[in-house]
């Protein structure tokens, strides 16, 4: 008696699957007549195949069939409820905030260049401002004089008036 040969498996299965030619099938059967183990393996394989005929694809239960048929409806409903209007999506909200901020930033970054009319009006504004300052200096001097004395008043009002005069002349030079 031969030892059980693993290679028989391929041939036995091919026999059962109907993949062996008639000649090969006869050769295997004839070999089995001389070998008890092989013969037994073939018989058992046939028995298994017969038993397997009793095992069929199972019918899906009604509850499952119902669930499977409901899949399109449920998935469509899910995708509808999961919908967020475009304007409320985070990226759009961020864009809505970012655009005005960018406009403001661009405006702030613009160089502050005066118009021609503003430049033309500037000396007049300066003259008025200096006149006010001159007057303020004189008033301040009088106030100090009445409180502290003449020397201190001259020192302060003189200093203020000199500063105003200097600034006035300096701006005129710049204009020229």
């Amino acid at each position: 008696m031969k030892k059980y040969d693993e290679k028989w498996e391929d041939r036995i299965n091919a026999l059962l699957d109907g993949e062996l030619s008639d000649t090969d099938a006869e050769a295997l059967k004839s070999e089995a007549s001389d070998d008890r183990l092989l013969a037994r393996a073939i018989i058992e394989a046939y028995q298994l195949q017969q038993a397997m005929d009793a095992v069929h694809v199972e019918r899906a239960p009604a509850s499952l069939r119902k669930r499977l048929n409901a899949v399109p409806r449920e998935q469509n409903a899910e995708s509808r409820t999961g919908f967020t209007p475009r304007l409320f999506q985070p990226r759009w909200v961020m864009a809505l905030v970012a655009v005005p901020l960018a406009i403001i930033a661009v405006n702030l970054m613009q160089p502050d260049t005066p118009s021609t009319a503003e430049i033309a009006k500037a000396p007049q504004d300066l003259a008025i401002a200096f006149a006010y300052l001159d007057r303020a200096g004189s008033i301040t001097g009088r106030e100090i004089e009445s409180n502290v004395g003449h020397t201190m008043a001259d020192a302060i009002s003189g200093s203020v008036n000199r500063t105003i005069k200097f600034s006035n002349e300096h701006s005129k030079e710049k204009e020229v």
Partner: protein
Amino acid sequence: MSRRYRQWVKEYQDQAWTVARYILKDAQEAEDATQDAFVKLWNNRDKIDPERVKPWLMKVTRNGCLDRLRRRRDNVEFDESHMAGVVSGPMQGLAANEVGVWLKRAIAGLKEPYRSLVVLRDVNQHSYEEVAGMLELNLAQVKTYLHRARKQLREQLAEVRP
């Protein structure tokens, strides 16, 4: 498109259910796994080649079941209590056939990928080529593993048969 999906449900629901049933050994979980697979089918319906729907669905069903098995860490071999559900559930037609019931238990008790191979090839009757595609194995591997699985079943059957 919905009509086509319904056609797929009609054609493949039993096969997908059978795969899930054998792998998970739990009716409720098998229903959930089968539904998950069909939800994926619906969501990918425009991407799948209509000719390849069956192998795609079987593969997705099996992979989903194996993921579930991994999650529940079910390394314990077949639990007899599940068979009570089998006999009174969709397998009721086989209750009278002792060999059939025994064989179902034996198949469910096989390790992966042997169990899936036997279910896909011998129960669902898919071709070797289809099974190879579903399990991402080559044809030689499919045959080798299937032969080993059948041999195991054969030997177990020989033990219980007079």
